[in-house]
């Protein structure tokens, strides 16, 4: 019935298969209509079963990866809470949490360090990491290039410069500061896209080069603002240069949490459409994706996330850039990975914070550690790109 086709079927047959494990109809086998009909149905049922199996395998794998990442995030959060100058036990942390949540008396000697210093630091770090990871991967997906991450193409620098100006010159804080950073981020995104405009769409190569140039100029501006500031001190300056969690406090947590939840959910809803953009605007349009609308909506959400995180922790270097590729590696080749990039971003920030606090000699801001990881990786990717490989 089902005839295995000859492996050497030549190109003159439209159905020339290299190594079919399944008997697939060959056009040459036109013995009788009935035989063909039966063969095709049987084959397709078999193929469908095999597709279902591999789909199930992939779902399991992807659920396992997400679960492991979440476990890692919780573990890192715990380590960041418990290991400092002094080591706290699990029961210490639970009793402090009980006191804080139930509104009871603070635990002497523990509550201040754990609940007021470390917990907000962990919360801000995780939320900002999520925001950077989601925003970076969204840009990388839409523009179909790892280098098109917002921290490379100047959008983070735009939000950061606006935030530094907002704090130093205008004395803003909280949601107002985030909104001001957002304006800076959006304006920079619009400027980079306009500069890279070429025949109806932004050219990705131009966008990356323009963005790198603009980022350098904006970083100079923010340095100048910091140097001119009266309240100049190393700690706050470092926050705006590389990103730091040193100033994290509870009042910062609520605004960034709201932004991450709302924008994160919206991005998740957009994900099936954003995924199609990875196949290029023409194919996506042919498949019924409203390309321009999807691009604009996803980029707006990404800039909102990025600006809110930058206004909170400063531009923690390279987290947006690194999270997408790491998540893509974990998710498997060709799979969409924006959501997981968010979790990876949070893990990166917390892990870097743990390292930053335990470096001998001095405490360094978290951004210094992420720079130490991200810089070399950027160089490696640049070299690969220059050699004409896909990155």
């Amino acid at each position, binding site marked *: 019935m089902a005839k295995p086709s000859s492996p050497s079927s030549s*190109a*003159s047959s439209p159905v020339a298969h290299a190594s079919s494990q399944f008997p697939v109809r060959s056009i040459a086998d036109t013995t009788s209509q009935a035989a063909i009909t039966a063969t095709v149905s049987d084959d397709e049922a078999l193929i469908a079963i095999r597709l279902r199996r*591999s*789909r199930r395998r992939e779902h399991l794998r992807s659920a396992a990866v997400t679960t492991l990442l979440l476990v890692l995030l919780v573990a890192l959060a715990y380590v960041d809470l418990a290991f400092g100058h002094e080591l706290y036990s699990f029961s210490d942390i639970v009793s402090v949490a009980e006191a804080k949540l139930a509104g009871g008396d603070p635990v002497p000697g523990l509550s201040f360090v754990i609940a007021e210093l470390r917990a907000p630091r962990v919360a801000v770090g995780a939320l900002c990491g999520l925001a950077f990871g989601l925003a970076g991967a969204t840009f990388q997906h839409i523009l179909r290039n790892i280098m098109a991450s917002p921290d490379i193409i100047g959008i983070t620098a735009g939000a950061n410069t606006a935030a530094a100006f907002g704090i130093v010159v205008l004395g803003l804080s909280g949601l107002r500061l985030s909104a001001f950073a957002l304006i800076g981020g959006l304006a920079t995104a619009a400027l980079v896209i306009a500069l890279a405009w070429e025949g109806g769409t932004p050219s990705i190569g131009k966008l990356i080069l323009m963005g790198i140039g603009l980022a350098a100029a904006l970083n100079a501006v923010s340095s100048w603002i910091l140097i001119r500031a009266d309240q100049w001190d190393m700690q706050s300056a470092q926050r705006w240069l590389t990103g730091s969690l040193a100033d994290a406090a509870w009042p910062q947590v609520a605004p960034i949490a709201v932004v991450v939840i709302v924008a994160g959910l919206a991005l998740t809803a957009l994900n099936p459409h954003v995924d199609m953009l990875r196949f290029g605007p023409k194919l996506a349009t042919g498949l019924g994706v409203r390309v321009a609308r999807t691009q604009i909506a996803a980029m707006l959400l990404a800039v909102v996330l990025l600006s809110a995180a930058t206004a909170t922790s400063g531009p923690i270097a390279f987290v947006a850039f690194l999270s997408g590729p790491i998540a893509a590696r974990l998710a498997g080749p060709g799979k969409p990975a924006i959501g997981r990039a968010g979790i990876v971003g949070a893990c990166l920030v917390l892990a870097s914070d743990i390292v930053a606090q335990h470096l001998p000699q001095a405490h360094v801001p978290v951004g210094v550690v992420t720079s130490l990881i991200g810089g070399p990786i950027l160089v490696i990717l640049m070299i690969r790109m220059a050699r004409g490989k896909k990155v």
Partner: protein
Amino acid sequence: MTTLTSHDADHQHLPHAFEARHIALAYDGHEVVPDFSLTVPAHQVGAIIGPNGCGKSTVLKALARLLKPTHGSVILDGKSINTLPTREVATKVGLLPQSPTAPEGITIADLITRGRYPYHGLRGGWNTDDEQAVAHALNATGLAGLADRSLDEVSGGQRQRAWIALALAQETDILLLDEPTTYLDIAYQIEVLDLLSYLNASEGVTVVMVLHDLSLAARYADWMVAIDHGRIAAQGTPGEVVTESLLHDVFGLNASVTTDPGTGLPIMVPAATHSLKAQREAYARKAS
């Protein structure tokens, strides 16, 4: 023997009234096509030909709603495709752009899955229809054995068949292809065109493709349209379109057209002056 319920009947494609009505096309205000009309006959294979920059890909873009006409409209079953919901159009008209790109490392099965996008809501619920459509696309293109292979590691012909399988999983009745044979060597070009002919014969898919190679276009098309400077220079059967006068007027090429004894279709052979020997002789005459 299994029962004789024709399986291919599940995949028979419906005829649609599909036409471009006096469309004008422009890029950034620069007009490329002033006034173009074309009725696409259902269940037939058509080829759009013309020299580089003549506007043939632009016309295909308009048919695929990638480019909105400045005047006139492309009509699908009585309605303009620019006003119909784009996903509804995507269930009837499929497009394979020239040299499409995919994320690195994606498997062939995963790529083909994307053809089901138009049938899904905001959160895609995968069902047996989707599964069958993908299985059929894999089977019809002979890619079942390569389903789990990465698109990056298969041959050029197999890769192009995978892209056609994606369009097939989309289950559209009309398939538009922009130079589906570009960058393929001659055996793969024939392989791709054979596959499209097979899909047309077995399932009644209506095919419209932009092609460079005139002799191949004549071999694989029911009808042809030659475009020159955004205007239709000739239209009809391959025998009516591929003529010596058209080659001279549209392509600026002195060539003779003969009939292929095997197919009875026209084949184009450039004039004897376009050869190494003739050019050498011409040079020798000039030098002496």
